[in-house]
């Protein structure tokens, strides 16, 4: 603790939720909200039940069907994932028995957990929220302390309303300057991971700060925080501001009236003190960030979109050379190849990283009046049913479908492979998701992570391309 008493935003959230310090160096933290999904929530509830424990306060627990549920229009409980229906049915049964609010398959508010949680106002600045899903860090974007846990921890949170946690250290990533035209939060976070490595945040809670972060709209901040776990951070937080207040105002589960005023008064103090010290501090100039795309099988294997596939020898450390070698083999790529020469088989727009309305708008802007390249399969999956309806009100569904994209119902869909739907073996997918691990989107499927605009432009070009490069190319042909 600093002698000055100056504290970081993370420290404030932490100490506010500390029920007691345990004698083993952990703290018992109070949990304000638990969110479950059908993939792991069903098992957690079942096993809690079997162990003879009750849910402490079911009103603070929410559950959605997002991971396994199909995203084909008109879906039901049937899903392409073998035995997937068992998870859906078990989740319904367990949540009903425990009296937990479920966003079921056909609920108008169903969607990906990290999309619907803020959309419903279930997560709020100053609250703790846990979910057995590693991308729970997404929700730190509005100033909540939200982090991913395992199933046993979920059981603990459900039964006791608390978690035993060892406090991570404080890191601040200050991003100043302005992002260039066409450069997004996705490009920014890929740039950060490339620079600091997939283990760069291990042992830290990260606060994103700086003028470039303040300039981001709330949805883009979710994208930024979403990938904090990809550089191994415990979680990420951003100090809430008026944009967050405007975003949350009137949401279903947001406080109302007098409670809303109290909440805002409290939220305005949720920021790091000017003199607070961080265990580690990093600085990024937003102006240096360009459209980025991953070439390998780790989110740190990032290339400039106008650059080349690197050669393994270009990496100083031997472990990076080895993983580059493996990644090139898996991805079927040769070093030195211009990134823009990499042709693609599919384009996927969706996931808790980039499936909100602003993401769909950015992609639609590129796609409008164009058509996806022959042989390329394009799929758009809104992050929630609300996002879907909002997009349809703006006619974005038509824009995508006219361009040759499939327009789906909401869910995780092909962000990950659970034995069901996939783009296929050796297919190359440019994807707005967050993980390009081997097999993530299916056995031997090759993933390139990028922003919605880049994925849309690549779908049209048939090879990896930014929106700017697509326009340049078309003006050459014209």
């Amino acid at each position, binding site marked *: 603790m600093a002698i000055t008493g100056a504290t970081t935003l993370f420290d404030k959230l932490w100490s506010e939720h500390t029920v007691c310090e345990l004698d083993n160096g952990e703290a018992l933290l109070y949990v304000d909200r638990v969110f479950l999904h059908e993939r792991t929530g069903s098992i957690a509830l079942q096993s809690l039940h079997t162990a003879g424990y009750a849910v402490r306060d079911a009103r603070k627990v929410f559950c959605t069907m997002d991971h396994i549920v199909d995203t084909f229009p008109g879906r039901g409980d049937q899903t392409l994932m073998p035995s997937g229906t068992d998870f859906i049915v078990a989740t319904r049964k367990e949540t009903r028995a425990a009296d937990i609010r479920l966003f079921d398959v056909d609920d108008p508010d169903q969607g990906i957990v990290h999309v619907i949680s803020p959309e419903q106002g279930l997560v709020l600045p100053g609250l703790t929220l846990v979910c057995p899903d590693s991308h729970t860090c997404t929700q730190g974007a509005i100033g909540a302390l939200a982090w991913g846990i395992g199933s046993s921890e979920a059981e603990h949170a459900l039964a006791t309303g608390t978690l035993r946690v060892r406090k991570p250290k404080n890191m601040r990533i200050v991003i100043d300057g302005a992002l260039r035209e066409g450069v997004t939060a996705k490009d920014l976070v890929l740039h950060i991971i490339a620079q600091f490595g997939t283990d760069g945040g291990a042992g830290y809670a990260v606060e994103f700060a700086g003028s470039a972060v303040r300039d981001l709209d709330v949805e883009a901040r979710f994208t930024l925080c979403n990938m904090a776990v990809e550089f191994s951070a415990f979680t990420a937080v951003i100090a809430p501001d008026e944009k967050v207040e405007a975003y949350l105002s009137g949401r279903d589960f947001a406080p109302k009236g007098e*409670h809303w005023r109290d909440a805002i008064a409290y939220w305005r103090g949720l920021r790091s003190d000017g003199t607070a010290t961080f265990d580690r501090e990093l600085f990024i100039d937003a102006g240096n960030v360009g459209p980025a795309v991953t070439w390998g099988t780790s989110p740190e294997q990032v290339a400039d979109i106008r650059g080349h596939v690197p050669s393994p020898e270009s990496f100083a450390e031997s472990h990076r050379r080895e993983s580059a070698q493996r990644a090139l083999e898996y991805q079927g790529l040769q070093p030195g190849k211009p990134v823009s020469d990499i042709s693609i088989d599919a384009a996927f727009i969706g996931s808790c990283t980039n499936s909100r309305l602003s993401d769909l708008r950015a992609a639609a802007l590129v796609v409008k009046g164009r058509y996806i390249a022959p042989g390329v399969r394009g799929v758009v999956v809104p992050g929630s049913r609300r996002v879907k309806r909002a997009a349809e009100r703006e006619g974005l569904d038509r824009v995508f479908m006219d361009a040759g994209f499939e327009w789906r119902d909401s869910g995780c869909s092909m962000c990950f492979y659970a034995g069901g739907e996939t783009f296929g073996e050796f297919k190359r997918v440019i994807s707005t998701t967050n993980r390009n691990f081997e097999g993530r989107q299916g056995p031997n499927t090759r993933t390139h992570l990028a922003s919605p605009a880049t994925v849309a432009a690549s779908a049209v070009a048939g090879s990896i391309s930014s929106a700017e490069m697509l326009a340049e190319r078309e003006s050459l042909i014209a």
Partner: protein
Amino acid sequence: MNPFITHTGIAAPLLRRNIDTDAIIPSREMKRVSKSGLGEGLFAGWRYTLPGGRERNPSFVLNRPEYQGASIVLAGDNFGCGSSREHAVWALAEFGIRAVIASGFGAIFHTNCIRNGVLPVCLGEDDINALALRVQRDPQSNLVEIDLQKSLVRCADLECSFVLEEGARYMLLNGLDPIALTLQQNELIDKYERVRRNKHAWAFAPFEDRVEGALP
């Protein structure tokens, strides 16, 4: 939960960095609404020749005759990064792995290990390489011995000490159920909650107002 005090066994070197939980257990192998039935899917992408198949890939370390019966994994940095799926630990445990020795662990995975009686041992890269060298010479006789009470790992002439946070160590040594332990603090939790509700009613109002009958 079974306590972990000491364990001696065959160690299998898998000296890659960033082995993520998708690699430890591919999502397609998580077929049942259950914590069991996962051992077969452990490292499936590497262990079998074809996705979803069961024909063993003879070159994968756990399939090699000299590593049969392995109960310890030696790995590179950041083992268990990625997805929070606890299935990764359930699969390791069901396969018979009692400990993973690596130079770093994914944070969620680390906690999941403790909650399931699997010991995560953090050693420097040099120590791990030295261990692997000895193991590789003769995996069946150069067994690795882990003593959690003394926080030591031994193999042949090598001895390394490791640090595990006190809380985790205590849980593992005693095989404790953290839920039962925390429920002993229930009064404290109730008290905290009352104070929090008074101070931050806004944090409770949205759902308490919807439900009949407020809490005491």
